């Protein structure tokens, strides 16, 4: 019982063909707008698609997403378009209304052929739509069914609604961001959903590895909130609390801990100062010319400084930073192996010569929006390069072709051979 396909597959991808390690894998993406955000599922699909999987986005009959439901708005429209351009590159789009009999039949045909179905249905949504795990696994016992929702498939909040800010709030992220005298603020860009999508993709791969041996699919239940909390236990945020019983609140431009962990203004913006190792801090003091104050006992214990009077050292450093630009500072500090970095805006980030030389930034020409620079795949693979190949599809543009390939045609001979063919067993030499 082995399920890896060799050679030709059910590939419906347009040119250029995928080169990544998951080529040959067929993943479906189903997002029900009523169930909450589709971003987690879309990011999961994006990661699998960049890795070479054929990813088919099943589009609901009405416009999906929060902007559509909230009415027309230029700001919202640009944001939604941008999100789609980023998250849906490499995907194919099929318009499909599962509430109709024809749509349902087509959907079930897809499910029967797919390796993965990623969705955002809460368990009550799945029941309402007759898309329960039992129902889908009966169509295809090898299916890996990955649910990415704010709170997961069980637990007292399983039917609750949450947008990204609500997820970050209950995951204790907001509590730590902002000025202590002002209200907490969230981390932007719907980051919580990205956490869920990333964990969903990685957990899907675990299930696929398991399927190599068992031949059986399974249900993967991902709660974005739970994933976002999962880093807390080994983070600096919890360590001090466990040790001292005191849990620090938000601290504005800094994190309370060994000095420095702080955002520092400079001539043309801000630098981010963080030095975890004493040697790094000593090298920085040497660059400053080992000033008198640094030799004072008051400023030798960086932990004490960081917890009790970090503002004093901020004030001592501020004039030196204020005279210099980010570019000057970055160049100088890097030369001395001091890990302070400039705070770049998104345009500057996209102009990085380093990322350019690594070939990370890739231009894709979108038929409607023209040439746009995309971030490349999250990792470089020496033998099976992941790639950003095709721009985001228009909703439903691939409906006919994909339907014919996956459901309308006889199973190609090559596929039958692949399924039957013995494949090297995964194992140790």
């Amino acid at each position, binding site marked *: 019982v082995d399920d890896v396909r060799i050679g030709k597959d059910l590939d419906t991808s347009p040119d250029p063909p995928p080169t990544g390690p998951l080529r040959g894998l067929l993943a479906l993406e189903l997002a029900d707008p009523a169930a909450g955000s589709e971003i987690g599922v879309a990011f999961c699909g994006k990661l699998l698609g960049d890795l070479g999987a054929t990813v088919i986005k099943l589009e609901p009959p009405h416009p999906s997403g929060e902007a559509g439901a909230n009415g027309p708005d230029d700001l919202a429209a640009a944001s939604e378009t941008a999100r789609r351009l980023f998250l849906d590159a490499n995907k194919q789009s099929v318009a499909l209304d599962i509430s109709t009999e024809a749509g349902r039949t087509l959907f079930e045909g897809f499910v029967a052929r797919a390796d993965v179905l990623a969705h955002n249905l809460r368990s009550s949504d799945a029941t309402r739509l007759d898309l329960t795990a039992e129902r889908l696994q009966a169509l295809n016992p090898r299916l890996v069914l990955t649910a990415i929702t704010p709170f997961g498939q069980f637990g007292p909040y399983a039917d609750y609604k949450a947008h990204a800010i*609500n997820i970050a709030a209950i995951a204790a992220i907001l509590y730590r961001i902002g000025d202590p005298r002002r209200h907490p603020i969230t981390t932007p860009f719907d980051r919580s959903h990205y956490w869920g999508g990333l964990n969903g993709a990685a957990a899907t791969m675990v299930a696929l590895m398991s399927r190599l041996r068992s031949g059986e699919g399974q249900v993967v239940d991902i709660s974005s909130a739970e994933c976002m909390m*999962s880093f807390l236990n080994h983070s600096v945020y919890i360590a001090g609390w466990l040790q001292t019983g005191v849990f620090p609140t938000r601290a504005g431009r800094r994190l309370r801990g060994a000095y420095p962990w702080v955002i520092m203004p400079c001539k043309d913006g801000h630098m981010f100062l963080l030095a975890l190792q004493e040697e790094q801090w000593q090298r920085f003091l040497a660059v400053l010319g080992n000033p008198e104050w640094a030799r004072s006992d008051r400023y030798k214990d960086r932990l004490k400084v960081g917890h009790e009077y970090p503002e004093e050292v901020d004030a001592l450093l501020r004039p030196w930073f204020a005279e210099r630009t980010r570019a000057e500072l970055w160049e100088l500090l890097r030369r001395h192996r001091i890990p302070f970095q400039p705070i*770049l805006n998104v345009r500057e980030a996209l102009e990085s010569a380093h990322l350019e030389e690594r070939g990370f930034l890739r231009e894709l020409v979108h038929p409607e929006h023209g040439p746009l620079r995309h971030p490349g795949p999250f990792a470089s693979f*020496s033998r099976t390069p992941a790639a950003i190949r095709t721009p985001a599809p228009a909703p439903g543009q691939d409906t006919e072709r994909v339907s014919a390939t996956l459901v309308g045609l006889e199973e190609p001979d090559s596929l039958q051979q692949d399924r039957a063919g013995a494949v090297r*067993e995964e194992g140790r030499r």
Partner: protein
Amino acid sequence: MTMNGQAPALPLEGIRVMDFGQVVAGPVLGHVLADMGAEVIHVSSAARPTPDLFRADYPAWIRAQGLLRNRLSVTINLRAERGRELARQLAAHCDVLTENFAPGVMARLGLDYASLSALNPGLVMISMSAPGQTGPLRDMVAYGPAVNALDGLYSQVGYEDGELAAPVSDDDHPSGIMGVLAVLSALYWRAQSGEGQYIDLAFWEGLSQFLGHSYLESQLTGCIPGPRGNAHPSMYPHDVYPCLGEDAWLSLAVGSEDEWKALCTALGRPHWGDDPRFASAAGRRAASAEIDAWISDWTKTRYAYDAMAELQAAGVAATPVLSIPGVFADPHDLERRTSVNVSTPSLDRHQVFNGIPWHLSRTPGGLRLPPPRPGEHNRRVFVGILGLTDEEVSALESDGVLA
């Protein structure tokens, strides 16, 4: 590995990993693979102590114990040629090798992919670093949070008036999870082809994925986004509101027309649900003072948990802003075992570990082993896998090679 048609409860059983992980991102990668059943051998050395990055701050044992669970531990002195030779031999018996040293360190030790793949062509090796293994900034020193300064995140976290705020450092952990995704994808490919390969994961590039939408938006609009408080481009309300108690807040977001109507009904102004002025997020944003005062007046008389229950029952997305102690007492988190209490003889005190946040129906993985002592498994590994004798291992330990 058996092929009896039964899925093991540990989905990665039979995969052997040599784990040079240090600090956070590398150990996260190792601990997730180990939770899922891989045999993960963590390599450390007393002779080259991993810089104890938090020695000035938080005790390393807190961090290490959670991150190193389910591991085997060996100690190898990589400064000794015999130590490097044993490391190479062990790598020849592994499916995966993970490391997150600075670029170039593994090559200096003769443990680069070219050397190791010559011994073990099926090896999947991943190197993780902030800048990646190539490029003009390859030698840059940068911790996870600093990567988020470079990728554009920090420039957008703060209040609408321009005051920046340091975000929570949620960078190393997702980088480690990206490592898991990359390694398993390469193993999946190897199952078809027999081919190993090398993966260069730059945290800078990995964390940029979380900002892709912002990069494209700035190209479409020509605008450079700055800090925006809790504002969301397509939702209003989308903010936190004060509740009963000290520094107590409720997060509340309205993502659709239905949710707006539900909010209006729950807060006793159902007619606002049909008011054309408020039919879109933009319309509501234009009346923000009026709307925010109305919501705050309601939340101020309630505890955040009560407000959540009331609003969720009405179909409104609202949650309390929890502190970390709050997370550990939350009923939902308790039921999903988001964190677990661990108490074993090898731990010097009661510990709180992460649970396994991925719930796989057939092969859930599990917490099997407490974090090891350094070198606890030298015999098991060097005798059991490399075929050395007990005496040889003892001699290597006393010679400072396995140390």
